[in-house]
């Protein structure tokens, strides 16, 4: 079953139907009750007067109900129906609630999504209703994006949900309602807490935005303890715990937080100063010859899991330097030539060594991409194999970004529209890939990528804004483009994006 979009015409029709129903009820009551007795006495004026009174009472009652539904519908949905997992009635009340006047469909979708998260299992029918509601929205806002994200989370797509919720926090304009952004932030905090990303919890809690639920504040307080940042006192944690619901569930968290010593000053960022060569020391004694040494390091790091937690810059730097030394000293070449002579393929030794070096560079690039550690800047000056790895990383990153930007551009040109949430997802994917590439490739790569990304994303956002009226998601795109244009120093893009934001209400 798909949900009906609640348009203005639909509302008018419903209101007329309700008035007609009231008249009918009033009439019936009049006919069956006192009106019937009076009518039998044969006084038409009196009959009319009584009917009018009854109709007036009916209309008043109806108006009162509508007012109550508008004023108390959302609290009823939020505090009773959603906790019970009753999505449909909660969505109905949310749609007519005063709180969601600016985004009734988004509110309904969010109510249904929150109820879905309360149910013991995922309900595909409810997820379909949410999708239909979100699709019916003329201009998507934070509520619609949050509802879609929660439906994704319910389905098990946690990464997708995280990405969309981060997007919901960026929505601007009239549809940037506080409640969905509060829910988005709370979900992201729970997600980060479950993964032990305490600093991220603190960041999310400290970010500007609507007030957080009590449970999120408790998580943030505990996270501050675990992350070694400025944190509440033990009494403060007790108060946060008392204010939050579900005391039994949150008691272990409270005890763990209290057992963690409180620090008054932030710990130094441990990522800043991993001792150079520290990784090598942990490997135990390494061979002194360049090739076996590089291979020993290579084999050690290629199999680490999870790599992104272990291969810190100094360690990747050690590995790159070890391979550069192999190339510089000609160790692999000498060994290959000696063995090639014995195998009777001396003429092919050069090509085989080149292939070996290429494979090494490919592995270094792979390690860099998997660990998120940039090679550029680690080795100064970079040797031949480091250079090759840097080139490979840049090419792969550039290709990934260009591919998405081209897809976006061709869709914009062909006007192949997707549902608004999917448009946001597409943009988020491009931006995430661009930012990751920028983090690994540095400012040079950002300058290289930006013109194409700017062209594709700007046209895309203009299309969203002008033709599809999706101002809520177009504006954050303009804002991101402006920030990035300023970072890479693209004057024309800065001008254009300032005009876009200025002219269009920025």
């Amino acid at each position, binding site marked *: 079953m798909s949900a009906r979009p609640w348009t203005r015409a639909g509302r008018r029709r419903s209101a007329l139907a309700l008035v007609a129903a009231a008249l009918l009820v009033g009439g019936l009551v009049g006919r069956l009750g006192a009106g019937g007795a009076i009518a039998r006495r044969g006084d038409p004026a009196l009959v009319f007067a009584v009917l009018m009174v009854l109709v007036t009472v009916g209309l008043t009652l109806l108006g009162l109900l509508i007012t109550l539904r508008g004023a108390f519908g959302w609290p009823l949905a939020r505090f009773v129906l959603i906790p019970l997992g009753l999505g449909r009635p909660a969505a109905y009340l949310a749609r007519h609630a005063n709180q969601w006047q600016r985004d009734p469909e988004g509110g309904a979708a969010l109510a249904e999504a929150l109820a879905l998260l309360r149910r013991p299992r995922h309900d595909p029918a409810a997820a379909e209703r949410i999708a239909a509601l979100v699709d019916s929205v003329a201009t998507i806002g934070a509520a619609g994006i949050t509802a879609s994200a929660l439906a994704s989370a319910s389905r098990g*797509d946690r990464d997708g949900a995280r990405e969309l919720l981060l997007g919901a926090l960026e929505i601007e304009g009239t549809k940037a309602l506080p409640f969905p952004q509060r829910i988005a932030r709370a979900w992201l905090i729970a997600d980060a807490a479950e993964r032990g990303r305490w600093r991220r919890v603190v960041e999310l809690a400290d970010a500007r935005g609507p007030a957080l639920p009590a449970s999120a504040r408790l998580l943030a307080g505990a996270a501050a303890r*675990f992350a070694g940042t400025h944190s509440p006192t033990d009494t403060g944690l007790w108060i946060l715990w008392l204010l939050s619901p579900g005391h039994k569930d949150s008691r272990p968290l409270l005890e763990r937080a209290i057992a963690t010593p409180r620090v008054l000053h932030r710990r130094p960022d441990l990522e800043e100063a991993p001792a150079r060569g520290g990784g090598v020391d942990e490997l135990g004694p390494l061979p002194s010859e360049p090739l076996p040494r590089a291979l020993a390091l290579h084999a050690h790091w*290629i199999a680490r899991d999870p790599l*992104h937690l272990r291969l810190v810059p100094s360690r990747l730097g050690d590995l790159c330097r070890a391979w550069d030394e192999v190339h510089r000293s000609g160790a692999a070449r000498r060994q290959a030539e000696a063995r090639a002579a014995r195998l009777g393929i001396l003429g092919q030794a050069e090509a085989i*060594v080149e292939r070996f070096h290429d494979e090494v560079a490919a592995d270094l690039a792979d390690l860099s991409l998997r660990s998120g550690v940039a090679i550029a800047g680690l080795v100064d000056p970079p040797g031949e194999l480091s250079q090759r790895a840097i080139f490979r990383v840049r090419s792969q990153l550039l290709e990934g970004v260009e591919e998405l930007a081209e897809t976006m551009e061709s869709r914009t040109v062909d006007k192949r529209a997707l549902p608004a949430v999917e448009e946001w997802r597409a943009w988020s994917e491009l931006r995430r890939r661009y930012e990751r590439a920028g983090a690994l490739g540095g400012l040079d790569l950002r300058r290289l990528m930006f013109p194409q990304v700017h062209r594709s994303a700007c046209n895309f956002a203009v299309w969203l804004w002008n033709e599809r009226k999706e101002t809520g998601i177009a504006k954050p795109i303009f804002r991101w483009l402006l920030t990035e244009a300023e970072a890479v120093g693209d004057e024309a893009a800065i001008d254009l994006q300032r005009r876009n934001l200025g002219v269009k209400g920025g």
Partner: protein
Amino acid sequence: MAATPPPRFAHNPFFVLGAEPDRPRVELEREGQKLLGMLELGLRSAATYATPTGPEARTPEAVRAALAELRAPEKRLLHELWASFARAEADADASASAGADPFRSPAQPSAPKSDDDEGPGIAGAFALFGWRRP
């Protein structure tokens, strides 16, 4: 992010056969046939082989593939370069701390904390909000 060791270590024919890279081809063939026989008999000592990235299961197919790879001299040379660990091991054995394995750190390296590694998370974080865990 799962570690995906490239097959050049895990499937290196020299590691599959458990042979030194500079062994003559005849010896490698003999070693391969011996392993195939052992695998046929189901001997446990032949069921796995050590590589720098950890033990791997040895199958008759892997042994035959390794032998086939080593029959082409140019492929063999490339595999030899990747399997130059024998020398590394010898160097390590000769070093003061004998017995240390250069391929394996004595313990998992204690990586500096990153944003992703700040400690064990809270299992029921979503339950605090009354939400089902994704």
